[in-house]
């Protein structure tokens, strides 16, 4: 969330990277008479010698490997501890390692969270923890205290259940927000496709998996993997090697080593041919597109630098994919590719967001660019632009001493040649167009990709059939569960009709007799909608008077009144005030009818039984209702209980549960209604029947 705040503040400064490709014109000579000929572009001075900064290293008896980069410009020291273990599949506890990492910062056996927070802030330090390590930094004068705190966190975390509970609450809110975020959905499903559910890289946290995690699980994880013998400590700043040796021995010398099991997941295979997957977002106006597959490309391997050049030409910045899809076709605001190296399994991935109507054209253009880089040699000026750009990135990154520490750790972790980074620029300069085509042939696979489209299935599915090679499109939900959209609805048994379904529903809630005894009804409900407690009061009077009030405390936000013939929407706090007309009025007439289920024929509502479909784990009859206004809704009635459990309409999904009996009639006491991106959970507080409501309650004036 802090990031969000920073973005909000930063936006005010309107920082904008200027990467706008446009028509290139040749440089004209300046027309003015000037002493200096400004049309002459200055030539670079002789290239400076680029020294990769020096580092020192040593190892403690417990196996902790330490790297020291001295930099005395600022009296500050930072410590970055990384634990090098292969991630483990977490199954029904996905997300557990993340929680364990966060919990390290929430208290030790010596300090409560409050004490720890105060001690870190008191010395003005930064200290953060994750599932793979701990970062800490402070001014040199607080160095002793900083290391005491860091070592305490690393060696004596307390894993208190109440601290985990706070983190879980936050994570679940985060997941709720993600359900409406196409980027987050694409991330979850594309890694599932590329790596598979059994691979730790393919897993994502779900509400269920979060619930399954306990503090004991987190502690067990910590005990298995937070060991010095798989640790790399990078120390950067105002410190010498001799000082670092003493301090590491003093603070981390007692950290006990023990064997760590390195899990080896099965290497995911390339799909034999392209596979298309969809996550359906019925309201989406854009498609989030990912095209990717696993690659076997290890950090520091012989191909790594060539592959980096090749991917940059293709889409690692404002290059080919960007120029084609944005500058030329205007399908999108941006289009990029990544080719990641990894010790276990790397990944190629293209990402872009496009209009629904060009989803197929965009995929064709991505494949066009993927084929082009495999087949054609990159023109020399394009290659040299990319190499210069990468060379500059590398040189400029050396300003940060952390870069040197990262180089040192990567060299040790991945077993690179000692001079791998020293030779980096030389090897980059040596990459030629043939190399680029060769690595493209090896790592760019336009025939073996997972194509994931997160968008409106009804619009985009027909456009995607051409990419599957005759296979069916796969459908996934947010949690990665695959379903078959064609077998979702099964035919209803012979002889069953929509009228029968409605009849058994009426019987299930108490029967026609009991329903007809209702002369008026008062229902109070409330929800905590995005932070506010909001009350919903509903009043109905037979045959068709209706009033609904929405408000908080004494405030009334909106009121809807129907007096049997006319309806009005009133917004006392500002907003819309209007008399309902046309279709809106027609819909209101149906809505206001007491026990509308008994009167559909009279109201002109048409019913169609569409079949049997599973809804929230139960078999349901699916009935389509068409109202006089032309609007439609789909209702789901539990085959066993007969009760209505779900309704799909224009606004989104509504569910009904917790049926309770009042005056011999069952009413749902838990109603949830989707409204655009949010879901409102309505809790019924009370229902009163026949309390003799007065007619003037429904007066529209």
């Amino acid at each position: 969330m802090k990031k969000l705040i920073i973005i909000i503040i930063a936006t005010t400064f309107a920082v904008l990277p200027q990467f706008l490709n446009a028509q290139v014109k040749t440089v004209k000579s300046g027309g003015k008479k000037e002493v200096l000929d400004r049309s002459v572009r200055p030539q670079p001075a002789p290239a400076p010698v680029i020294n990769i900064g020096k580092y020192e290293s040593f190892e403690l008896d417990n196996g902790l490997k330490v790297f020291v980069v001295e930099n005395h410009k600022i009296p500050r020291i930072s410590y970055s501890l990384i634990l090098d273990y292969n991630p483990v599949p977490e199954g029904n506890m996905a997300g557990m390692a993340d929680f364990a990492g966060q919990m390290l910062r929430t208290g030790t056996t010596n300090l409560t969270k409050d004490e720890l927070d105060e001690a870190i802030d008191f010395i003005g330090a930064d200290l953060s923890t994750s599932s793979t390590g701990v970062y800490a930094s402070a001014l040199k004068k607080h160095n002793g205290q900083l290391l005491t705190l860091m070592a305490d966190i690393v060696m004596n975390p307390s894993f208190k259940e109440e601290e985990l509970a706070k983190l879980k609450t936050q994570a679940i809110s985060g997941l709720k927000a993600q359900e409406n975020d196409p980027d987050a959905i694409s991330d979850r499903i594309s890694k599932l496709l590329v790596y598979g559910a059994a691979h730790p890289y393919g897993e994502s946290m779900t509400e269920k998996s979060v619930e399954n995690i306990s503090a004991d699980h987190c502690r067990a994880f910590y005990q298995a993997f937070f060991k010095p013998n798989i640790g790399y400590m990078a120390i950067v700043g105002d410190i010498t090697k001799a000082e670092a040796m003493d301090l590491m021995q003093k603070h981390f010398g007692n950290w006990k080593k023990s064997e760590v099991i390195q899990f080896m997941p099965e290497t995911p295979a390339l799909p034999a041919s392209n596979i298309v997957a969809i996550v359906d977002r019925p309201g989406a106006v854009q498609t989030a597109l990912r095209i990717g597959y696993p690659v076997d490309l290890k950090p520091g391997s012989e191909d790594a630098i060539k592959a980096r050049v090749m991917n940059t030409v293709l889409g690692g910045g404002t290059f080919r994919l960007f120029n084609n899809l944005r500058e030329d076709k205007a399908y999108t605001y941006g289009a990029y590719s990544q080719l990641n190296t990894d010790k276990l399994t790397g990944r190629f991935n293209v990402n872009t967001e496009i209009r629904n109507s060009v989803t197929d054209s965009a995929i064709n253009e991505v494949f066009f660019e993927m084929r082009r880089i495999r087949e054609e040699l990159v023109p020399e000026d394009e290659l040299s632009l990319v190499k210069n750009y990468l060379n500059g990135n590398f040189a400029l990154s050396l300003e940060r001493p952390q870069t040197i520490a990262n180089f040192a750790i990567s060299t040790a972790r991945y077993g690179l040649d000692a001079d791998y980074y020293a030779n980096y620029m030389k090897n980059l300069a040596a990459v030629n167009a043939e190399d680029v085509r060769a690595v493209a042939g090896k790592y760019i696979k336009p025939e073996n990709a997972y194509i994931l489209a997160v968008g409106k299935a009804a619009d985009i599915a027909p456009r995607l059939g051409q990419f599957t090679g005759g296979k069916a499109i796969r459908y996934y939900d947010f949690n990665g569960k695959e379903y078959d959209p064609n077998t979702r609805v099964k035919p209803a048994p012979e002889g069953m009709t929509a009228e029968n379904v409605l009849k058994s529903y009426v019987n299930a809630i108490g029967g026609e007799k009991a329903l007809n005894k209702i002369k008026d009804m008062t229902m109070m409900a409330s929800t905590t909608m995005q932070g506010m407690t909001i009350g919903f009061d509903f009043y109905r009077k037979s045959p068709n008077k209706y009033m609904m009030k929405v408000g908080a405390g004494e405030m009334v936000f909106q009121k809807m009144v129907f007096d049997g013939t006319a309806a009005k929407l009133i917004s006392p706090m500002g907003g819309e005030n209007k008399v309902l007309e046309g279709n809106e009025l027609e819909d209101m007439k149906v809505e206001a009818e007491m026990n509308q289920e008994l009167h559909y024929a009279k109201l002109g509502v048409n019913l169609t039984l569409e079949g049997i479909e599973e809804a929230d784990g139960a078999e349901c009859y699916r009935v389509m209702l068409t109202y006089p206004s032309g609007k439609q809704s789909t209702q789901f009635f539990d085959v066993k209980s007969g009760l209505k459990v779900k309704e799909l309409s224009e606004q989104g999904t509504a569910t009904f549960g917790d049926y309770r009996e009042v005056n011999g009639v069952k009413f749902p006491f838990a109603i949830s209604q989707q409204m655009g991106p949010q879901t409102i959970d309505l809790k019924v507080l009370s229902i009163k029947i026949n309390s003799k409501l007065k007619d003037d309650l429904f007066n529209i004036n």
Partner: protein
Amino acid sequence: MNTFRKAFLLVISLLAFILTSAQNRIDFTEYDLDNGLHVILHQDNSTPIVAVTISYHVGSKNEDPERTGFAHFFEHLMFEGSENIGRGEFDKIAMNAGASLNANTSFDRTFYYLLLPSNQLELGLWMESERLLHLRIDSIGVETQRSVVKEERKQSYDNRPYGTLMEKTFSAAFKEHPYRWMPIGSAESINNATLEEFMEFHSIFYVPNNATLSIAGDIDVESTKKLVQKYFGDIPRGTKEIYRPDILEPVKTAEVRDTVYDNIQLPAVVQAYHIPAKGTPDYYALSMLTTLLSDGESSRMTKSIVDKQQKAMFVGAFPFALEDPGLFLVFGIVNSGVAPDDFENAINEEIAKAQQEELSDREYEKLRNKVENDFISRNSTMAGIAESLSDYHMYFGDANLINTEIDRYMAVTKADIKRVANQYLTKENRVVLYYLPKQTL
């Protein structure tokens, strides 16, 4: 014995402080060219890179209220090319030289930077002098950037959750002063602007006597001076009057409250209090007050409202320091199930506490340690040093504040912090905005 220990600790911390200042000193040379361009050079040969930055003393506050967004629009036009640099080539030349570049526009100034390998210093000076001397502004460039800026506005403000928050806050807080609009300006005024107006704007504000050229990195001072003279020396001084608003925002007499409905999941609350300009003594006290309230997990609002009461996902107090008097902002996003007024009450309780109780010695020491850490850590990159030197010169006429501004923070006493909390964080001096999810009922 105890007293002795305290004295000892004091001496130790003083020593450490002196050492720090000595080690961390940023040396620089500064002078003016005949045309008024102010030049600042900082030499550091440890890495072969150089930051070439130029800052123009024009931000959104210098704009005509009918033509908001001009300063920021210029930031875009400045990448369009010049007499000797074709359209779209500016980026390519930079990339080919292995350089990175960017720019930003604030209420008070516009800042451009190029970070280059040090053997490309001359190229960087040529590029910056080109667009100062003869920027190419034509209708193609203006039209292209018009649509880009409109997309930028949609993406960063209109289409982003809470994206209009600063805009709404500033327009509610300022009625007279030009801080009432954002640097991005209004889409309408950019639409209505003519090519002539853009050229006029350039000729007033994009002149050497309104700019600071700040260079930091692997340079030799004497030869750099010669190169600066070569590329910037013959650029003519501006002749038009540079508009600097002299508008005093009237003192508020009553609290302003408003509600904004936005496409968001969780409500947010903003309080904005008017405060003095940056660089004033009270500004430093207010800045330390924000540290007390929300910097770090143990800060008062974070600990009490986020961690203990769990009323908010986030809460922060920020000193939004500007050249003219600015705002002290308190902003938070409430947790699901919490009423915004409940959250605002929690904020008010913490403010009242800061107004009524003096902070403890330990808490005061914590603030000073945090401020010191932030100050010292700030100048770790060449681009950062060049920008700081430039800002200190432009706002205060004293680039050496890069070394000495910490003293102004350290001069703030516990009593000062309590006093400014009482003086500025009053009900009548504030604007309160509630951001609520759009009602879709």
